[in-house]
């Protein structure tokens, strides 16, 4: 087991390295750098001005060198201007020579500067992750119990009216992406056109102070799209368990239906959905990006859109590192949890 986790962690690091290199490569292509220079300097810069701007900041060095700098295994760039002022990646302009560190990258705990927010990347990402964590927490709180309930109720009597209604409902929710359900929710519950003004169409105020009024719609929008899939998986697992021999035995012994479902079937039926729920979390990230844009909630997804839209290289790298860690960590937890929950499976 320990070896298995270690090997998975190794794969995780390799994946994270490859992925960040791809992001690094794509964001460091010349047209992207040109855009960066023009948004940072001014839009009417000539080609020579762009080149010298990029040259001074070390953007035009070979790709592996730049990537090594970001990682912190290659010395950061140092440029000396003709008038003697020295600028560098690792220090502010007026640092005395003996205080200048040579390496500054992720390995040294330095995630770089965001060019959009003019701030430290690590701080931005942590702050925004906290906000998104709040959103995700509420989403999971709403989504998981209701999805499991729907799945178990639908799966306990396959083909009944309850099953068909709930299955249709879960198909309908999987067919409604966040940008559709969000738009419908805002139009119905937050606009003057329908006259129902129960909730707010913007979640900006929820960043400091989440209330029922401003947080319901975003949470519901994300939860609804993920719910259908988990419910269908739970239903499938439940119907399979209900065909098992020990359920028949229990039924023939005369155990009441409620007890069959709660005491015999439920535990075995909830093993498979656990994996599905864990694997669903990275998908929620997608919904988070859409919903945060739609409801103007300035969390992690909103930062992703800002960073990507402005080619903010170091912020984008940090964002992709975080998301790849989320993806791979949930995979690891789902594998390990599956083994722990299901005693029939062993990792050799």
């Amino acid at each position, binding site marked *: 087991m320990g070896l298995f986790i270690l090997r998975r962690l190794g*794969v995780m690091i390799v*994946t994270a390295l*490859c*992925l960040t290199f*791809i*992001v690094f490569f*794509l964001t460091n*292509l*010349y*047209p*992207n750098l040109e*855009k960066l220079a023009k948004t940072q300097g001014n839009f009417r810069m000539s080609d020579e001005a762009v080149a010298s701007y990029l040259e001074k900041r070390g953007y035009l060095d070979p790709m592996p060198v730049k990537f090594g700098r970001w990682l912190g295994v290659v010395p950061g760039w140092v440029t000396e201007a003709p008038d003697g002022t020295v600028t560098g990646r690792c220090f502010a302009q007026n640092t005395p020579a003996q205080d200048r560190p040579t390496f500054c990258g992720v390995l040294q705990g330095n995630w770089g500067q965001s060019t959009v927010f003019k701030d430290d990347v690590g701080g931005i990402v942590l702050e925004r992750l906290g906000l998104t964590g709040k959103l995700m927490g509420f989403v999971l709180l709403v989504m998981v119990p209701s999805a499991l309930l729907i799945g178990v109720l639908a799966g306990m*009597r*396959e*083909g*009944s*009216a*309850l099953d068909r*209604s709930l299955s249709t409902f879960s*198909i*309908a929710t*999987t*067919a*409604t*992406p966040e*940008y*559709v359900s969000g*738009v*419908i929710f*805002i*139009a119905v519950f*937050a*606009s*003057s*056109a329908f006259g129902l003004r129960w909730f707010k*169409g913007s979640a900006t105020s929820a960043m400091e102070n989440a209330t029922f009024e401003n947080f319901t719609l975003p949470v519901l929008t994300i939860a609804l799209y993920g719910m259908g899939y988990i419910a269908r998986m739970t239903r499938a697992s439940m119907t399979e368990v*209900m*065909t*098992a021999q020990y*359920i028949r035995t229990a*039924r*023939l012994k005369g155990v009441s239906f409620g007890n069959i479902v709660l005491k015999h079937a439920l535990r075995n039926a909830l093993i498979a959905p656990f994996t599905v729920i864990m694997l669903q979390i*990275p998908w929620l*990230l*997608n919904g988070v990006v*859409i919903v945060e*844009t*739609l409801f103007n909630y300035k969390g992690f*997804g909103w930062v*992703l*859109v800002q960073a*990507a*839209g402005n080619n903010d290289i170091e912020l*984008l790298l940090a*964002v*992709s590192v975080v*998301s*790849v860690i989320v*993806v*791979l960590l949930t995979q690891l937890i789902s594998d390990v949890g599956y083994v722990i929950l299901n005693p029939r499976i062993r990792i050799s």
Partner: protein
Amino acid sequence: MEQLTWTGALSGLNLVFFAVALALAVSVLASILVSVFARDTGPLGVNADGTLMAASGMSGLTGQARYFSFLALVVIVLLYVIGGVVLGPQAGIIGGLARNMLPVWIALIAIFAVSITFKRKLGLYGKLFDSTIGMIGFGLVMFWVFAGVMGGAFDMLITHDPLSQFSGMKNALPGTPLNGAEPDDYQWFLLGGDNLARDVFSRLIKGAWIVVKIAPFATLFAFMVGITLGLPAGYYSGRLDTFLSFLANLILAFPVILLFYLLVTPEIVQTGIPNYMAAVLFSFPIVFCAVLLNSRYCTQPSLRTPLLIVVLGVLVWIYLSLISNNGAIVANDSYRIPGLPGFVDWIDMDSGLLTVFVAVVFVNAPTVFRIVRGLALDIKTRDYVAAAQTRGEGPWYIMLWEILPNARGPLIVDFCLRIGYTTILLGTLGFFGLGLESESPDWGTTINSGRRLLSLYPHAALVPAFALMTLVLGLNLLADGLREESLRD
């Protein structure tokens, strides 16, 4: 011309409609309650574990109530449509829509009539017409397919030009008469105007065409890539599998939206990366067909050689016309790779569309790969594969002619689901304003431009939102029906 109401002359039906809808809701709730409290699952309940249960009256009663109120609802909806077709705009907005959609109704009736008549001879497709869910799904999907093809490719259904702006029609409500209409113009904006005073209805139909044009083909290409790589990964296992699975997991570890932002910006298009990716991804169908035919007919060279020449010739021509644009495969400031010259390049695909297409294929392919690999891993342990190996068949023959046909059931179901997912992805691209131009009528872009005025004029965003929802719902129901019917035998 005056403002149209929703139902116009048919407004007498509204009361009946609401009554029947209420009856349906009540009977569904009642049968749910009965199924919770009563001890049976229908006339003669067979439990999942094989035991039987006695019949009882309550559930049968509520079941019948549900059935009949559903039928009544369908009849009333049909009455609205037929009344609308007969009366036209006199029957309000619904009438105008129904009249405009007449070719679609005719095509739908024709395809349903033909399919139901010959359903016993049509294999899995025919069996679809045995399940209500499958038929509803198929109807919804074909509605949008016909609307897209007729409206987009033949300009039939649309009432106004989807790109031109009409003065005084900015944010007009549904059913507003056209300001200063000529006698031969269509007199109303049936579903209102958007914030640039364009007709929402016509843009809706044009948007359906964009989806119908891209989503099935992008899914097909993703399947070609996934199958061509997934079969050997599952069949050979070992190093190849480890490597390909690592690549697939790498792509899947990207958040989709980040990937879109990295691949679909104008700056990346300038570098030509999407064109290179297109050149690689679009070559998979050629490889697939070549291997497919060669592995089957390699023992009969006299048949194989001409067959391969013809098939590959056509495919390579399509391939080159797909990836070349204005006579070049990649053209940017510093260099240019020539492609097919314009006069033999019959597929006119502008670079924005190509980029969107490539991004969607790229996102979908790894998931298909994983599904195919899993199926191949499972099926290669079967006896018929062992029999083929004993006969001395080559590995590619076994993969493509033994394993693949036996994996078709789950693959067809996933294909339907994946078209729906591709539609959602296209909408996501539009929603973030990536790829297609900002005036493009596709649904995602329209939702994005409509959402700014959502609290005052929701119709401009709601109409494409409902359209996207019904199409994806139709595809999911279709997949569900197919799954049910393919499991039955």
